[in-house]
């Protein structure tokens, strides 16, 4: 089914960038300000769903050839992987750590292993959201 809606397409082209940027921003700001893996993932996922709704599935799939099931699976692996990872440092399951590091160009930054865990959450949310909506809408 091809949708030919010029206004929607033009608006979405711009808006999607804003939504995706917002999603990434929310993801990173989550540590000390509102945001985080779940909400970031949701915003990213809804941006992708908006793309699918506006253009058709084939077009988007050509430009963005991800299998979202695998994205979700990778997310789960990342989240559980960081949980298990702490065992290798002789710390209890799911222990997170953080610290301040001086990076080139960026200067001193606060880095935390929670970010990896949250990245897992975000990827799972994006993958699952898109998988569910695509499966239902593709059903004959």
């Amino acid at each position, binding site marked *: 089914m091809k949708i030919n809606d010029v206004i929607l397409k033009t608006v979405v082209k711009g808006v999607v960038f804003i939504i995706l940027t917002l999603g990434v921003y*929310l993801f990173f700001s*989550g*540590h*000390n*300000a*509102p*945001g*985080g*893996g*779940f*909400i970031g993932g*949701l*915003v990213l*996922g*809804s941006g992708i*769903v908006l793309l699918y*709704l506006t253009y058709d599935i084939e077009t988007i799939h050509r430009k963005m050839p991800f299998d979202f*099931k695998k994205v*979700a*699976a990778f*997310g*789960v692996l990342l*989240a*559980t992987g960081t*949980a298990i990872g702490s065992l290798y440092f002789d710390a209890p*399951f*799911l222990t*997170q*750590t*953080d610290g301040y590091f001086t990076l080139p160009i960026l200067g001193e930054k*606060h880095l*935390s292993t*929670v970010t990896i*865990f*949250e990245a*897992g*959450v975000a990827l*799972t*949310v994006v*993958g*699952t*959201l898109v*998988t*569910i*909506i695509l*499966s*239902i*809408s*593709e*059903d004959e």
Partner: protein
Amino acid sequence: MTIDLAIILAPFIMATCIAIFYRNIKRNWVGWIVLFIPIILFLTLTTYIPRVANGHTFSNTYEWIPSLNINFTTYLDGLSLMFSLLITGVGSLVILYSIFYLSQKEALHHFYCYLLLFMGAMLGVVLSDHLMVLYVFWELTSVSSFLLIAFWHHRKASRAGARKSMTITVSGGVSMLVGFLMLYVMSGTFSIREIIANISMISEQSLFIPALILVLLGAFTKSAQFPFHIWLPDAMEAPTPVSAYLHSATMVKAGIYLVARFTPIFGGEIIWFWTVTGVGLITLFWGSFNAIRQVDLKAILAFSTVSQLGLIMSLLGLGSVAVHLGYSDKTVLYTQASFAALFHLMNHSTFKGALFMMVGIVDHELGTRDIRRLGGLMSFMPFTFTIALIGSFSMAGLPPFNGFLSKEMFFAAVLKITELDIFSLQSVGVIIPIVAWVASIFTFVYCLIIVGKTFFGKLKPDLLEKQPHEAPVGMLIPPFILISLVVLIFFFPNILGKYILQPAMGSIYPTFPSVKELTPSIYAWHGFNPELYMTIGVVIVGVILYRFLPRWKRIYLLIPQRFTLNAIYESTIGFSENFSRLVTRRYMNENLTHYFIYIYVFFVAVVAGYFLFTEGITFNTTIDAKIEGFELILVFIMVVAAISILFAKSRITTVILNGVLGYSVAFFFVIFRAPDLALTQLVVESVTTALFLICFKFLPDLKPEPSTRGVKISNGVISILVGATVTIVGLAVMNYEKFDTISSYFEDSYNLAGGKNIVNTILGDFRAFDTMLEVVVLFIAGLGVYTLIKLKAKKEGTDIENK
């Protein structure tokens, strides 16, 4: 030393490797690679023989769940070593045989994976000292047996047989678990050795007899003892190597192992003596009696296995008298029954394994195992005939084969026991040798049937699918190794007795000072005594019965079909299936409204009930914030939207009104300064609205459901109750003081979790376990939706399952 742990783990590791890498292995190599494991394990275990024979035992403990007192304790003594050698030795031969038996087109990786799984589990059973670990491995053998019986799962009979064996052995296993827990309650330890050491402490307790019966139930179901034997003939649907391995040589002997292992604990009880001996003898008789009427060679062997297991079981029962009597010069004689049990167990594995392989060869080369279609194969299959002859005659108890020795010892033991005057043996004890003798006659008859109907008589070429010819060498080597053992053990029985059986006897009678006394010398010729006369009688009567078989076979028709054990089993299973379906249908009526009612009624009952009974509801309006005007406006909008939903005519309207509710909640979050929640609520609301809209194209128009006034009223009442509960809980929660406040964690979140946003520190650190599992659940839900939609069963697919 961790070699004992490696012995248990090696098959599991190999199974994992096969499961992962089978695509990279050439199909005809899989079996050869797998073969390494049992051979290496067998060779490793043989190095222990001299040390164990000198009375050493090996034990190691690995912490597993120390907080629950569950540790992985391996224990290698005489009994474990004997079983381990059997498992790995027969395992090697069976795997070698299966390489030639199974076609390259079969799912070989599944087969060997399950087989290794079984091998590891079985080694785990015999090498564990910890009751819980033993139980886990015990059930794992049932599971792998289930998988192997159902290996040809496209056949209905295979699936039915697998289910039956699983149902019976697992129910026995669960009762055994309860017995183990009772033992733990009584003794305070899960270690078998410690329980044996403290036996005087527990044998007086009231739970002792129930524990005994429950443990025996586990052993009897596993070892196919009457009346639980019905699963074993059905398990013959498995490929023949599996039948030879699991259902004659190893798994069914786990029950024997358990009885032998627990003899020091329970052996002194009269109920143990009579149950084990009695059930064993009934099984011995019933199995041999039923074997005669079978027409399938494998079914004959199945019933014969049942009967031989009964023989071993009854011998262990007879041997337990020695535990009751305690150690003295005279009582040592009674331990010979247990010795005969172990000896016959080894012998049975050799000749029965060979016989199963023989049947497999016949089936493989001729395409049938029905004795009505077989006959006259002697000249076509001379090697197979040799295997059948030696195996059967050993089973029948004829010299010069090992079965003769153990059968004579069996007769000696049943005669000996009648001399005792305990356990009311003086009056009823005389039945024991009679039953044993009659069962041996039947055993002799079916052994003649196996050889006679298959290899003698006339060839029936028109009933056979293939031209008879001899099997490939690879299939003949394993049974030939076994039958050479059959003959070798006859000539050199005392080597086996000294190195394998003697230390195993030490495990059954740990309180007896000298194991040397427990090992009699085995002689093939022991003069003209009652045992020999019994054997001669068996041969004479057996031959006569075989000659006139067609005349007396009609007695099998006397048992009405309705009262066979199988019919009772089927009707019990059928009844419970129907009953549970009826009960489930009463509440699972596929009506979504009803399901919601269950959920809400449960919610109100639990939550409101809790607050009512604990008197946790206290209202204190003074600490509540002041209500602003725009908050009232929002509430008004929500109330209007909620009530309008009830009168909506189309699904779109419902969803949009529902969206209004959701967005208003998000506004509330903004007002109350919870930006995280507001953001999440907004996005979730948008996505769910989009999801609803996508789904609606598949749904019919919204139609008012016809419902009576009473239903409407009760639904209304439930709705109001739910709303009231939520409101009251929300208001009362401010004053609830039953738990300690946890806000100190959140106030200190930066130091504790390195983040200033407490919502995220909760999600990513304080309650990260929840988050992780939620992520997994979300993923599973997504996959569920995907598979439900994408992998729908095609309606036109024909049902080839139930051929």
